[in-house]
């Protein structure tokens, strides 16, 4: 079963623009994590935000969490062509990390 749903499913932007991806989930969480997957590769962890946190930054990444709305967003600022990848949110469910359906981001140079 999938806990999270990302929106949009696909996003195309120009280099330098910001990219915003949203994630909605269904049950209460301990934490929410974002991962990136380059084509043909495994997933790489980007950032973890705990349920008692509302915002977290890491470099050009900004993640927000709204537990009342059961939603999170990932903002990538000043995007680069190298940011082209699929992005997944994931939530913890009884010791398992359950992933959403992903957003495919394409950044054009």
């Amino acid at each position, binding site marked *: 079963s*999938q806990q999270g749903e990302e929106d949009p499913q696909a996003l195309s932007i120009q280099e330098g623009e910001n990219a915003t991806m949203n994630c909605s989930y269904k049950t209460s969480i*301990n*934490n929410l*994590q974002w*991962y990136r997957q380059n084509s*043909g*590769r*495994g*997933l*790489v*962890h980007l950032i*973890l935000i705990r349920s008692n946190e509302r915002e977290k930054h890491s470099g050009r990444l900004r993640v927000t969490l709204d537990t009342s709305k059961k939603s999170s967003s990932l903002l990538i600022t000043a995007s680069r062509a190298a940011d082209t990848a699929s992005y*997944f949110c*994931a939530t*913890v469910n*009884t*010791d*398992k*990390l*359950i*992933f*959403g*359906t*992903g957003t495919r981001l394409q950044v054009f140079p």
Partner: protein
Amino acid sequence: GAGVSQSPSNKVTEKGKDVELRCDPISGHTALYWYRQSLGQGLEFLIYFQGNSAPDKSGLPSDRFSAERTGGSVSTLTIQRTQQEDSAVYLCASSLGRGPYNSPLHFGNGTRLTVT
């Protein structure tokens, strides 16, 4: 240091044959996960090992799927009597401690399984 290693990277098999997929987690990681990813889709949880505890097999899609983890390290995912719908990328991940409550998952690059 060394990351999660999966082998083979690609496997083509005929329908009805058995396959074994191998995962070498990061040394010292007690939690190990298997996921399946169909083309262009999200990740489907299959099975989770934590230390010496009984594995959580709740995601295995049928009794043709099984997995074991020997000595708390290397894991093997076995699919018996493969079907075409088993074609997917099988991803392994490991993490420290009690899995994702505190530690991120580290993924291998996966095994792409094609059943003809």
